[in-house]
């Protein structure tokens, strides 16, 4: 994760918080030239030549802001595909920075759903997907497959729990600092971080059966509630909308 400490643990969406990448002016000047064309394939080719809209910056920031542990290249590729597919209909509204951030959020939502579905099916992870976890797993003495499960478990946490665990554990921030940033008590942050810890423990095979069942029931309930609430109707063929800040399932 990048070290954008000031953006970290932000609960609200970029559009709600006035989020704007530092290099936004450069991207804003060029979008018409980049996103215009005859076909999505043409746009895709342009987007891959030097990253003219700074999509990788947006991916990096959204991962940090939303406290996800993902292979950023996968997210980048999926977000590019969404961008290319919708580019010809984009007319400058919402602002480019917001539009790109929404596409990244949509990519995150889809990948998380696909990973969760693959885990439920018990499918062996793709070698390309596993490659991203090698670096992450080594210092902790875990296998890449186990690390993949740990990351998925973390990503499936409710956003407050994910932010608390990420802030305390990954970013190394203090309980006090997090409590202040999130406007809740230190005890609440510790409680949330503990939820995160339980999910990680399950994924790493470190929690006894009874507790595993309790946490899994909670996760199932959460996924069920989100799938029926129609969060990010991303498979809709016609301009799917993904509201930032909403939780993927």
């Amino acid at each position, binding site marked *: 994760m990048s070290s954008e400490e000031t953006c970290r643990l932000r609960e609200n969406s970029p559009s709600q918080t006035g989020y704007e990448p530092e290099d936004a002016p450069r991207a804003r000047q060029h979008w018409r030239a980049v996103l215009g064309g005859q076909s*999505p394939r043409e746009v895709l080719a342009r987007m*891959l030549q030097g990253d003219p809209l700074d999509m990788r910056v947006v991916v990096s920031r959204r991962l940090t802001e939303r406290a996800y542990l993902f292979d950023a290249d996968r997210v980048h*590729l999926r977000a590019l595909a969404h961008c290319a597919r919708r580019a010809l209909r984009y007319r400058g509204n919402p602002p480019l920075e917001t539009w790109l951030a929404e596409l990244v959020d949509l990519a995150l939502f889809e990948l998380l759903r696909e990973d969760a579905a693959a885990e439920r099916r018990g499918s062996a992870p793709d070698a390309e997907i596993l490659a991203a976890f090698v670096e992450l797993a080594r210092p902790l003495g875990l296998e890449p497959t186990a690390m993949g499960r740990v990351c998925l478990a973390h990503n499936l946490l409710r956003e407050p729990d994910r932010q608390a665990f990420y802030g305390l554990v990954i970013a190394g921030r203090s309980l006090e600092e997090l409590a202040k940033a999130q406007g809740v008590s230190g005890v609440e942050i510790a409680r949330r971080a503990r939820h995160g*810890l339980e999910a990680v423990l399950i994924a790493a095979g470190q929690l006894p059966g009874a507790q595993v069942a309790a946490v899994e029931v909670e996760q199932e309930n959460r996924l069920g509630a989100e799938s029926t609430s129609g969060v990010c109707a991303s498979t809709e063929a016609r301009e799917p909308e993904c509201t930032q800040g909403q939780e993927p399932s």
Partner: protein
Amino acid sequence: MTPRNTSTPFARLLFELSRCSGAELERALADSAHIFARLGPAAEPRCSSATGAPPAICSLERAELELAGLIARAVAVLFDQAADALERGEDLPAGRREMGALLREELQCAASTHLFPSSLLAHGRKLAGRLPRAACGLATLRDAAQQFRALPLSGNLC
């Protein structure tokens, strides 16, 4: 509570932390910062250098596969929506003409990637042309959705 596998320092730490709560948990996390500190740099995403050139995985070929996967899924959803409406005896959600137009647009995008079998695209176009006249059978629409869904393209999992 017995740990299932405490073979690594991380596993042992997780087990220890699982027994803490409240202020105890905070203290334990602080005490174990040196172990988690190893995770911080490792968790740096592969593209966090952001302004640099994309790595090899972000090739045009790979990106096209992603794009084709999205299009295939969108086409499958449209055919399914048409089939659902037919099954319920209702009009199409976006109107017959609009649905046909949407399908043709998606199929045109699909053709531009050169990753779809031309016979499948032709079949899809034929059905898109028939939609406004309500001249498609339920089984035909479901079959078309299934064919697009079954293409071996990235993310095409629904």
